[in-house]
């Protein structure tokens, strides 16, 4: 395949992530509303919100420094780049080798670092509250994520996402218990990292219960738009990650023709929709946890990851 085509595919992937992210978040929102017998906002409401925010003045707290106004751009850019590193409809895109799964996880850590700094920059209690809770969640979620990476990488023989997707697509690994544990753990980590139920409430504005919202409380205008977009991108990133590792059905192989690419795209959309439905069902069925129950919840993911790695050695010695 020519360089131009590969470059075009890579750009298409970036654009696709950016365009789909608000749609997915809106889709989950609509579904949740319907499940709770509310009529809910229209499907495209998030796009409208973003457009409106971009058209508003940005207000910055008196004591904030340049970190506060730079952080949204960085968070957005980092999340967007790492989302583009996750194979969605095709593997082995032009730049997909520039970072493996560990790099993606760490990039999200950089985005979180920026966000926590920005939260502390305004010098109010809310920023500190959100940042300190986020730091506690992250300190468990990151090792849990790494154990999942270990499990998957040891099964697939590589921590490169394209290689993992190709390996899983071939299906030679059969049914592995470790992978099942890894899936459960990854779902828990994804819920925690994207600030969904039962860890955080994406819709709350009640001070004592929020985590993510507390950190971005002082943002407005275009800065807030960037942060909302980054948040939506994070959701689509984790969903794509789960789908690409555990269900790479019909993902287009390197050098595939237009038909395979179209099939891959269609399958990706279907998989995203299915993930969204499951997320909405789960969020409707479960209540938010107390903050100090969350460490046990994420800690369970860490345990599952460890257990998955341990069990791997049993089955590896078969």
């Amino acid at each position: 395949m020519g360089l131009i085509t590969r470059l075009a595919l890579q750009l298409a992937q970036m654009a696709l992530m950016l365009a789909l992210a608000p749609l997915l978040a809106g889709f989950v929102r609509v579904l949740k509303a319907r499940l709770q017998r509310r009529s809910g906002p229209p499907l495209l409401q998030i796009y409208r919100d973003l457009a409106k925010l971009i058209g508003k003045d940005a207000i910055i707290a008196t004591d904030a420094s340049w970190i506060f106004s730079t952080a949204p751009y960085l968070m957005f850019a980092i999340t967007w780049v790492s989302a583009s590193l996750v194979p969605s409809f095709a593997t082995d895109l032009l730049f997909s080798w520039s970072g493996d799964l560990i790099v993606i996880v760490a990039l999200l850590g950089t985005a979180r670092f920026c966000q926590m700094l920005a939260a502390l920059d305004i010098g109010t209690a809310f920023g500190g509250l959100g940042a300190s809770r986020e730091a506690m969640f992250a300190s468990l979620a990151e090792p849990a994520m790494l154990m999942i990476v270990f499990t998957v990488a040891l099964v697939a023989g590589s921590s490169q996402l394209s290689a993992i997707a190709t390996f899983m697509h071939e299906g030679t690994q059969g049914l592995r218990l470790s992978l099942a544990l890894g899936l459960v753990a990854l779902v828990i980590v994804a819920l925690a990292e994207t600030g969904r139920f039962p860890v955080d409430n994406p819709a709350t504005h009640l001070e004592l219960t929020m985590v993510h919202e507390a950190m971005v409380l002082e943002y407005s205008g275009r800065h807030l738009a960037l942060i909302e977009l980054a948040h939506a991108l994070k959701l689509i990133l984790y969903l794509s990650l789960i789908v690409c590792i555990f269900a790479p059905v019909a993902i287009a192989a390197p050098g595939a023709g237009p038909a395979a690419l179209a099939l891959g795209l269609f399958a990706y959309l279907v998989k995203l929709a299915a993930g969204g439905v499951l997320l909405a069902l789960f969020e409707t069925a479960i209540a938010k946890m107390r903050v100090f129950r969350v460490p046990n919840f994420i800690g369970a993911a860490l345990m599952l990851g460890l257990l998955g790695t341990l069990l791997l050695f049993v089955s590896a010695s078969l």
Partner: protein
Amino acid sequence: MCAAASLILGGVGGVLARRPAGRMIVYGGSLAIAVVALLAALAQLALGIAPDPLVVLPIGLPHLGASGLGMQFGMDDLAAAFLIIANIGGAAASLFALGYARHEAEPWRVLPVYPVFLAAMNLVVIAADAYGFLLCWEVMSLASWALVMAHHSEAATRRAGVIYLLMASAGTLALLLCFGLLAGPAGDYAFAAMRAVPRARWIGSAVMILALLGAGSKAGLVPLHVWLPRAHPAAPSHVSALMSGVMTKVAVYAFIRIAFDLAGPPAWWWGLVVLLAGGMTAVLGVLYALMEDDIKTILAYSTIENVGLIFVGLGLALAFKADGMMAAAALALTAALFHALNHMLFKSTLFFGAGAIQHATGTRDLAQLGGLIHRMRRSAVPMLIAALAIAALPPLNGFASEWLLLQAILLSPALPQFGLKLAVPAIGALVALSAAFAAACFVRLYGIAYLGRARGTAAAAAQETDRWSLSAMIVLAALCVAAGLLPGFAIDLLAPVTHALLGARVSTQAGLSWLTIVPVASRQNAYDPLLIALFIAISAVIGALALRRFGVRITRRAPAWGCGYQEFGPPARTLITQYSPSGFVQPIRRVFAGVIFRAHDEATLPLPGEAHPARLNLRWSDPAWSLLYAPLIGAIDWLAGQTNRLQFLTIRRYLAFVFMALVALLGWIALWG
């Protein structure tokens, strides 16, 4: 090499004489010497220009072994790698001190010792026999002790000095025994001779354990770390930077030299012991750091964490080496060495920044700081870079070395022993845990010291630091960025070291497209920080341009919402509503430190109608003290109390003691002599 060594010594001699002449000569001279030594080491490692292999000085103990001519010095590839680390750190610290040392109250306590300290660290690294090594090691310890005691008027400093002296002598004792075992009955103390001596398995193991104790106590392995967080912060900031950034690396060098080079083929459990020590050190070190409020103590504890990470790499390398997987061992060793270099870069920067803060505000207490980014605009930038780097975040250098370490861990299932197979992934989880804690720790440090609003009047009146200090910080931060974006060059630079020690090397990275790094060619796991940084920059610019084109550009300033408290007067406004450093870490403390440190928060709330403020009492205890050192001190106390009685005996009893000792010795000779 000769030139570098003699230059260092000459510098020391020249400088010692001119004590009153001032800091410019001492620090300027140190800077020049360090740069020369750095260039020499770089030339050897990168270009292969090696000077005379071995220099034998005409001084030394006369009857030490067959070649007992005197102290030997030589620069092989391992020494060159650590010379680079030592001299970048030394040069930067000297540059920083050119400006910073102006504020020193009693410069004559620092100036004469400082070059001796630098020279001793260099000489330890290039020593090629045990006598020279131990002599320079001891000079290094004593010089650093003298520097710690520069501010001896504070009681805490004196206490730190006593503990440091005790731990340093204990460590040297362990190393002395270690070299004694290495030399064996022949008693040849040259390193070259030690390599050739065949020795029993258990002697090699004893040597490794002694080296771990001796070098580990200097490097700060838990539980031998207790002196480090007391001594490092007590010294002047440029010396703290040297002690944390360079002296711990010299200790790492000592361990590598003994365990990889001299001790012979490793047993598989060596790796496990070092791995466990390293993993425990990494997590506990950073947990301690999270609990502290003093900036320099936080940095010292974070040094312990990083030393733990380096030892994880070394342990992994030992395990791979024992099982003959030399390529994997080379990867792990490269990760450890690279992390040693990186840690020197960012930890020195952070200590410089802490020194600048201490000078500008007169305090190191995080709870008094805040908002410094508005008043120390320029030095806030290198500090931010260093904080990002030490938190192991891409695309900076801390992440690059940690990524290499994780790649080495991913190779561990190929190890045959089940103990290692199961332990190494768990150690990997500990590494990730410590990285996440480090991120929390440095968000806390940076966010509370530099961001938000001033928590005290001193912080509100802070001044920017001087040009020399600033340039030192900027140079190191730039090196952090460079090492982070181009890790391939650093890996290639370290390749001769692993080749010399293990006979294998990480495949050459220089020729790969887009300057990416692929440490294990068969796995294709790649990381390209340059490309990723480029992507992030482009995406951010695209975002900014799009907002400029389509959005509203107006930015207004308004007070932040603080539930009405922002309406109060200035002191209340600044103190009441912001998070305090211990408040920030409360969730982590409650989840993690409750068991390990027996941390306990106790809040006393005023009853309705009472006017006094609520109080938060925070208690925690150091497990190393309460479980290891307190019983040890108690035992020594008891023993001393018992021996004290010997002072009050009659002459007849003393004679009886002497007589009995004589008879016992004679009897021993009669039986075993």
